[in-house]
């Protein structure tokens, strides 16, 4: 029940209390501050009745009871200030609501991936129900990562949501992996240290530097007369390769691990022969030397 504090001034102000009680106006917390001043509280709805009984009129030479409102104290004072600052209150409520709810939304999608993969990434995100300016279901990062890693040539993927921004990072294997039955193509860049051709025709010599994608063996057999006929390639090759990369804002161990994974050295075809980690300021330069073995038909 809200009450308002009033102050009545006059001679024998307690008589006014009696009058108010007779008029059916309950009075609360009455205190006499001095001989002529009496402060009391009435229900908010009764304030008009009090002023109707004592309208603060002054007669000639006579002083009748005068009633005035006292300013609110305590929480009422703050509540009244807030009431007069509706704009501030609405703004504060809106700010809290927006910052709380925005976390559940995706307002921006950042792609850190080769341009050729953008369409496929968008397709994967759409398949998992992730769209810009839409609600985001938490815990989907692993599923999206798994779908993106299944794309051709993708060697590393991470999906991270911070606030309302979703960041997708994709790194591809820069080395060609496909080999056809007609061609035996180098899967890595390096020095050809061994090439055994059981069927087909060798196109490169051992000891030469080979770029990834270079055909090592042709699926044809040449006769001494100069004629050729197609043949299913059966061959075996070894390349001495090197992978170097600079990493920032991570530890030495993390830099090595990342380089190891990016070079796909966890594959059975790779055998690490040497690793070097050099510190360059705050960065780490990791150099990995390995032997890459590939076979076709064996």
């Amino acid at each position, binding site marked *: 029940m809200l009450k308002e504090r009033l102050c009545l001034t006059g001679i024998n*102000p*307690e*008589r006014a*209390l009696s009058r108010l*009680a007779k008029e*059916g106006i*309950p009075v609360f*917390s009455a*205190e006499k501050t001095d001989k002529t001043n009496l402060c009391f509280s009435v229900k908010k709805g009764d304030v008009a009745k009090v002023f109707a009984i004592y309208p603060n009129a002054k007669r000639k030479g006579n002083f009748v009871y005068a009633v005035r409102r006292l300013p609110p104290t305590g929480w009422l004072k703050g509540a009244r200030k807030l009431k007069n600052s509706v704009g501030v209150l609405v703004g504060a409520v809106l700010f809290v609501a927006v910052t709380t709810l925005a976390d559940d939304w995706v307002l921006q999608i950042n792609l850190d991936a080769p341009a050729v993969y953008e369409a496929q990434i968008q397709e994967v995100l759409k398949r998992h129900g992730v769209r810009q300016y839409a609600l985001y279901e938490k815990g989907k990062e692993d599923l999206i990562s798994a779908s993106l890693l299944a794309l051709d040539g993708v060697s590393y993927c991470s999906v991270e949501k911070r606030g309302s921004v979703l960041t997708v990072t994709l790194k591809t294997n820069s080395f060609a992996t496909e080999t056809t039955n007609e061609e035996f193509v180098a899967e890595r860049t390096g020095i050809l240290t061994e090439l055994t051709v059981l069927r087909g025709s060798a196109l490169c010599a051992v000891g030469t530097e080979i770029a990834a994608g270079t055909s090592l063996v042709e699926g044809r057999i040449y006769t001494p007369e100069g004629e050729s006929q197609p043949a299913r390639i059966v061959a075996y090759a070894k390349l001495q390769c090197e992978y170097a990369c600079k990493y920032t804002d991570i530890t030495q161990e993390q830099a090595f691990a990342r380089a190891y994974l990016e070079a796909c050295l966890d594959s059975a075809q790779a055998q690490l022969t040497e690793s070097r980690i050099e510190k360059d300021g705050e960065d780490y330069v990791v150099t990995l030397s390995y032997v890459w073995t590939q076979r076709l038909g064996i």
Partner: protein
Amino acid sequence: MRLFEELFENADDGVYGVKCVWKLGGEGYFEGVKGLTEFSPAEIRIHTRLGEVQVLGKGLSVKKYADGDLYVGGRIYTLTLATPSEGKC
């Protein structure tokens, strides 16, 4: 207040309708109040049908006054009833 209703059920007309409950050394509750003639932190004079009740104490205040019921706050030390014909009691 049921105890008091039972106590005063068969009381005389002069007593019924004017009641007082006083916590010794504390607050007091008065029924049948017609008005206040004096009000200060040390003294409150209550006008009733029976006469005038003088309340003496310290830090006296009117916590609630409505419909003939008066709730006095503070510390009441003395209650004196002065009836017009019979004198003080």
